[in-house]
């Protein structure tokens, strides 16, 4: 049995009186594409924010490749090899697409400020490599021609892809995507699915994605976890989930409180 890449155990978070996530557990195999779905307000983004360190859980733990991530701040979690994209893209709007990706490479650029100020050879070499790498990543997501465009001027679909390129620049082993398909047309959704599959194949990434768009979720995922009202509802392969009565009730029925 392969060791799980991402393990979430009993994750709970309370905001004041509201329990947004209650004892949620899941485990993702390395190299898998794992989706988290559920009706609005089910706690999917909250789960993502907990894993990536934006919130600290009230209870429970998160581990990646055997190392604890619980309670670490976001930048530490990125250092451990976990990258993410955002539902409302958090791009650096005034910077060019290339520079956005270069910021993603931040941790890998090994030179000091002094070397930069004195324009020493190591700075120049590292920056040249960084520019090349940024352009490679932009080409990978199909934004090669937009390298100099300010991120804020790009179309929504392009911005999503730029965020993807930036997340890849971090050099992650786990990539978490928050509603990557929202607002995209069917053709774009298929492009996205193909791109994600390619990433998994070529880079050996493990992917966790949150989405509502079933076209992506059903066709792409190896396993799906369903949340409802902050609680774990079901988990299984796309086929199993499609047929699960509790899941159907949660999406279609109204009151799925423990019925």
């Amino acid at each position, binding site marked *: 049995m392969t060791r799980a890449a991402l393990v979430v155990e009993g994750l709970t978070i309370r*905001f004041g009186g509201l329990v947004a996530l209650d004892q949620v557990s899941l485990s993702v195999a390395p190299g898998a594409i794992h989706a988290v779905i559920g009706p609005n307000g089910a706690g999917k983004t909250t789960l993502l*924010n907990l894993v990536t360190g*934006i919130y600290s859980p009230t209870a429970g733990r998160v581990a990646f490749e055997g190392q604890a991530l619980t309670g670490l701040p976001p930048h530490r979690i990125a250092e451990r090899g976990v990258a993410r994209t*955002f539902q409302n893209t958090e791009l650096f709007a005034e910077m060019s697409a290339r520079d956005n990706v270069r910021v993603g490479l931040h941790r890998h650029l090994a030179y000091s400020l002094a070397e930069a100020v004195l324009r020493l050879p190591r700075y120049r070499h590292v920056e040249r490599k960084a520019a090349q790498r940024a352009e490679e990543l932009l080409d990978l997501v199909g934004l090669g021609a937009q390298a100099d465009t300010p991120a804020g001027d790009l179309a929504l679909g392009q911005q999503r892809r730029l965020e993807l390129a930036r997340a890849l620049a971090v050099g992650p082993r786990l990539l978490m995507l928050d509603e990557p398909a929202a607002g995209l047309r069917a053709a774009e959704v298929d492009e996205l699915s193909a791109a994600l599959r390619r990433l998994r194949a070529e880079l050996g990434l493990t992917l966790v994605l949150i989405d509502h768009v079933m076209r992506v979720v059903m066709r792409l995922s190896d396993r799906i976890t369903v949340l409802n009202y902050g609680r774990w509802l079901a988990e299984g392969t796309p086929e199993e989930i499609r047929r699960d009565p509790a899941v159907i009730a949660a999406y279609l029925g109204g009151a799925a409180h423990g019925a």
Partner: protein
Amino acid sequence: MLGQVLVSGITAGAVYALVALGFVVLHRGTRVVHFGLGDQLTLSAYAVVVGQVFLGLPFWAAVLLSLALSAGFGVLIERGVMRPLRGSPLLVMVIATLAIGAAIREAIRVGMGPQPWPIPFVLSPAPFTVGGLVLVPATLAVAGVATVVMLGLFLMLRHTRFGRAIVAVYENPTGAAIVGISVQDVHARLWVLASVLAAVAGILVAPLITLSPDMGTIGIKGFAAAILGGFNSLPGAIAGGLLLGILETAAGVYVSTAMKDVVSYGLLIACVLLLPQGLFGKAEARKV
């Protein structure tokens, strides 16, 4: 001794409370923190002096003039600076209000000179004793007027259309816009309201301290009081103001008068850094 400290403390505190109210009213309604509010206080105090000394107006007329000018100034700021800057990042707003305050201060310095001005006394400066405490008529005036103004503010917000529109915009700008309330008008009114509150504070405090272009540092204390009170709460602002006034006076009496200001500012820094939600407020959570 303690009673005396309380009396002086509440007097200073009432002034801080008025300024704090100005900050909070403006921030809750428009999300802008007006770093020049203290300098508007200075402006209104000088306006009274100018009215009395140069225009020969009786005190009450000069006060009315000052209040009217402050209101007008508030409209000027809203229309001339805040409206063009709508949607700008917070940093830009802070710089803009800082610049407004600096401009007021410099204008006063140029127009009236940097030396302190004496304010002609309206009330008798003769002290009298009540139950062992030494009071000056000005003290009672400050406390009395401040109380009336605060009560008036609360009544206005609750019982007039003008006031209720303001509250609606506080709580739900989109909803307010949907029911036809002009958010822009309400913003203008809020600026007038804050300016008038600062003006009242300035007119009240002027006889008690020497008039100088740098009086506006009271604004920092008003801000501190607002933070102590949780920054988003009107009663909190009042409580914060009174508390600050008492603490500051106590520091002046029991520690040293020179260190009085250092205590205020030190308290302010400590509050901002360690307790940004103040004593009565809730911390602003950062959302993703």
